[in-house]
């Protein structure tokens, strides 16, 4: 399983729930449908990841990254 961020293309922004449903049927576990910015996030088993690219309305599929700040006592943040 890997965390993924799916960007929906401009022409499917108003049908984002349909895209999300299609992604679920393709094996993605959908956590969030962010309709203002056109992004669907969640996770997908490694062997199903390529399938997500074939879903209509998907512009890109990227691994979720993590941000890490320095500790509070660090002089440079």
């Amino acid at each position, binding site marked *: 399983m890997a965390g993924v*961020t799916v960007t929906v293309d401009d022409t499917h922004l108003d049908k984002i729930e349909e895209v999300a449903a299609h992604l679920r049927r393709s094996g993605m576990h959908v956590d969030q449908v962010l309709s203002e910015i*056109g992004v669907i*996030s969640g996770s997908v088993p490694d062997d199903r990841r390529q399938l997500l690219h074939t879903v209509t309305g998907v512009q890109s599929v990227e691994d979720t990254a993590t941000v890490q700040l320095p500790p509070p006592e660090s002089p440079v943040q």
Partner: protein
Amino acid sequence: MFPDDQELVPAVTSPGGTAETTGRWVVTFADEDEADLEATLRGAGVSHVASSRDFAEQALDVGQAQAGDAVVLAELGVAVVSAEPAQVTAMRAAAPGAILSVEPEYVHHILSLPGIDYLRGYQDGVTDLSSRLLASARADLAAAEVAQVFQDTPQFTWGLQASGVSSSPFTGEGIKVAVLDTGFTFNHPDFAGRNITAQSFVPGVATADDGHGHGTHCVGTACGPKAPASGVRRYGCAHEADIFVGKVLSDQGSGADTGILAGINWAVANRTEVISMSLGADVPQVSQAYQQVGRRALNRGCLIVAAAGNNAHRDQPSLPPQQQFGFVGIPANSPSIMAVAALDNLLNIGFFSARSLPGVRGGSVDIAAPGVGVFSSWNQPRPEQSSQMYRSISGTSMATPHVSGIAALWCQARARKARDLWATLTQRAQRLQLPSVDVGSGLVQAPQ
């Protein structure tokens, strides 16, 4: 205000001297209404008036038009007039306030390399000037070379002075600033009575309380009070802005894209004019998601401002370039997101401040702001932690909320948002004698 008749004699000189003129006048009218222009001209005895509207698609036949006394450029509210100085004076007198300016019609030339004579003259001039300067006392020379230096004072942080916030009459009133970070210290005494909306996007964390300090520091710089209750110096830019706190980073300072994107989505849903993100990942590629998100935020009137990154080590010149100068990471490297570099109080680039990502569209530093030794609010004292109400720390994280708060001031001052606001910030920045790959357009400046 206007020169008298004697000064209106056109000067036709050779190239290399003062500019060459034609003898005609370029007249700029206050009002673009063509009927008024023509009336003003005829009233001054200028009879043969041609107009660009006489030609198909206003493609003026310049030769034909110049045969008359005046040519009116209908779209521009400008006319080129052949007139005696006395006629021009009469024109201005007949319609006071109708004319903004009267300027000689100049002849423009392609800019070519100077000829030998010009270069010799230039060399003589430089030699003369150099010897005069060198003849002065060394102390005079040193005085002429002093750079700008700022210090914290009892009234203001150095950063508020350097960015012009300390003298700005604007407050950010009515403007929403979202800070997506480790949350905020809601009972910090400096923020009593402020309009604050908060939400956590950290899985398993219900409130947006700040257990780290970073978020509180950034909110402080962006939106801190005009007169802090404790009597410390002012450290915040948009002191009347509406604050939206999105906790997208845990108290340990970490957060996945999922929470960060959810925070941006929430801010955009609330139409916050400025979204401040003092966070990033040292990834040298543009993320498609953040690029589209930045674009969509702009389309909805929201400007995302993000930290360029702290992955440089400019104090270690023996390092290979990518490590010495760093690079702008995600999300600041999106073309649709404004990337902010950090300056110190001598307006030098911070040793840690990341340089533009080479060869990547959008991977540029767009602007710079105070980011070294920045005093702002921190977690309140708590028995279980040795933390304080204020701290001075450094980072492109500290530069970013300066730009965010100042963006809110410009938004209030000029009612500009998104792309217009971005343009205003970069156009009005103070240009520095530093490479644009490090500082973009320069030091952010507040509206005065």
